[in-house]
């Protein structure tokens, strides 16, 4: 089975968006374009911050995973979320196929356990070998300042796992708010995962949190890449 390329946008944030369009709406738009949106909410050690509902809503609309974690456990979460979202994407494609063949109610989970195990093995093979395009969109508003070292470490950790994969992966790093725009590209598409952590900026931008517009702008990066691919073919 040719799975094409798995496209993911990973949003790292610590709270509510406060300006521009609804981020969940933008995530739904991404999903329609075949891009899964995952969200990790980074909270203070004290526990519950506001904006947690929004985090879940964005991931739900974007067909991806959401987690709320403390900065200390960010590393493992970033890796797990990326991995689970990849298998999630593959499963949802399989489910669609199943519904096409059998009936509307069918999905992998309604099959007998032995069949599920066989499917799981195939899914693992595919997710290990498929091409991955991962765009990391990081919130750099003032409140993130203390969390940036953890983000940098998590990106390093993610790059270690990605480099050990069999399939090809490309990465891009965006941050928001940008100087002139809602978001700006820090690292353009590259196959060198280690660049994510190496050139991670350490300065916060402060001010507003335009999560919705930031997702919209970052998405343009995927779309441009598609156009580029089409041209090159």
């Amino acid at each position, binding site marked *: 089975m040719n799975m094409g390329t798995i496209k993911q946008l990973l949003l790292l944030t610590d709270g509510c968006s406060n300006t521009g369009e609804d981020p969940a709406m933008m995530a739904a738009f991404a999903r329609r374009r075949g891009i899964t949106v995952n969200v990790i909410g980074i909270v203070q050690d004290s526990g519950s911050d506001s904006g947690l509902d929004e985090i879940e809503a964005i991931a739900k609309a974007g067909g991806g995973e959401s987690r709320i974690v403390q900065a200390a456990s960010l*590393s*493992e979460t970033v890796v*797990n979320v990326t*991995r689970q979202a990849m*298998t999630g994407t593959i*499963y949802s494609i399989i489910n669609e196929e199943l519904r096409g063949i059998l009936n509307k109610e069918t999905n*992998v*989970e309604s099959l*007998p*356990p*032995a069949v*599920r*195990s066989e*499917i*799981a*093995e195939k*899914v*693992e093979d595919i997710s*290990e070998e498929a091409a991955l395009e991962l765009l990391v969109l990081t919130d750099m508003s003032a409140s993130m300042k203390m969390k940036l070292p953890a983000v940098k470490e998590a990106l390093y*950790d993610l790059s*270690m*796992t*990605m*480099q*050990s*994969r*069999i399939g090809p992966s490309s990465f891009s790093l965006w941050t928001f708010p940008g100087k002139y725009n809602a978001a700006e590209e820090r690292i353009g598409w590259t196959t060198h995962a280690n660049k994510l952590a190496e050139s991670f900026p350490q300065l916060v931008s402060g001010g507003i949190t335009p999560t919705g517009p930031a997702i919209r702008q970052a998405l343009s990066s995927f779309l441009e890449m598609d156009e580029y691919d089409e041209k090159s073919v």
Partner: protein
Amino acid sequence: MKNRYDARPGDLIKGKWTGHVWQVEREIGRGANGIVYLVKGKVGQAALKFADSASVASETNALTALERVRGTSPGPFFIEADDAEKKDGIYPFYIMEYINGPMLHTFIKEKKKEWAIILLIWLLNFFEPLHKSGNVMGDLKPENFIVASRERTIRAVDVGGITKFGRAVKEYTTLYDRASWQAGTRKAEPSYDLFGAAVLVVALVHKELVQKALGRPVELEGIVQSSTALQLITPVLIKAFNNEYDSALAMKKELLLCFAKKSTMKRTRKRKRPFSKKWMVFAGAFAAILTMFLLH
């Protein structure tokens, strides 16, 4: 996990596909991706793990892969996978052999620190067949291993990290992860497990020091060099930190060689100082344990 099946002692769990009924005795483990209960069914005591459908399926595969290794599995024997139906949804689970015994860190608590060396040998025995099957353990935290002391073996109770050679390790714990130590990749290969096993053994003895050193392999070597409990096997540990072993067997051989050197040293010393009886008893005990392994 969003919706878990929270069972209480006495609850009956009925499998949708097999019709088998399992009675919950108590909870025995809880992790990021599931809950494990000790249950009783027609076949006797077993362990039941609830997890999401994808995890159940992939762990089932890992367990059956282990069983192909040889007669006895380095992990629990897989019994069956099934679904529990409840009003609010379907909860996938699987049943496996219940392995009774202390986890690595609890085991060492009641013993002398030098036991860490014995545990390392047992761990290497565990890796040998696993690696032969083309898989690594991946997640090397002490909670994932149980000492089945009667058979003098170590067995895995969590197989979520088991990964085929050549792929990116599925699950890991930072403290025992080669990449987090900046000492290599996260690619599944024997040296990944051997690195982790070496760290695990040092951490069993000097947990806090190892935690503080995370990310700086030089400091890790320092801990080993100044440790009296691990003195005997320092060169082997350091070679493992540098990824110099590509098989568990090679590492085990050198470990045993370290012991051999030590016992000849003891013998020469004995002639010079016949009064150190206490030491002789020690060496004798060690040698006895050793010969048992060698015979094993």
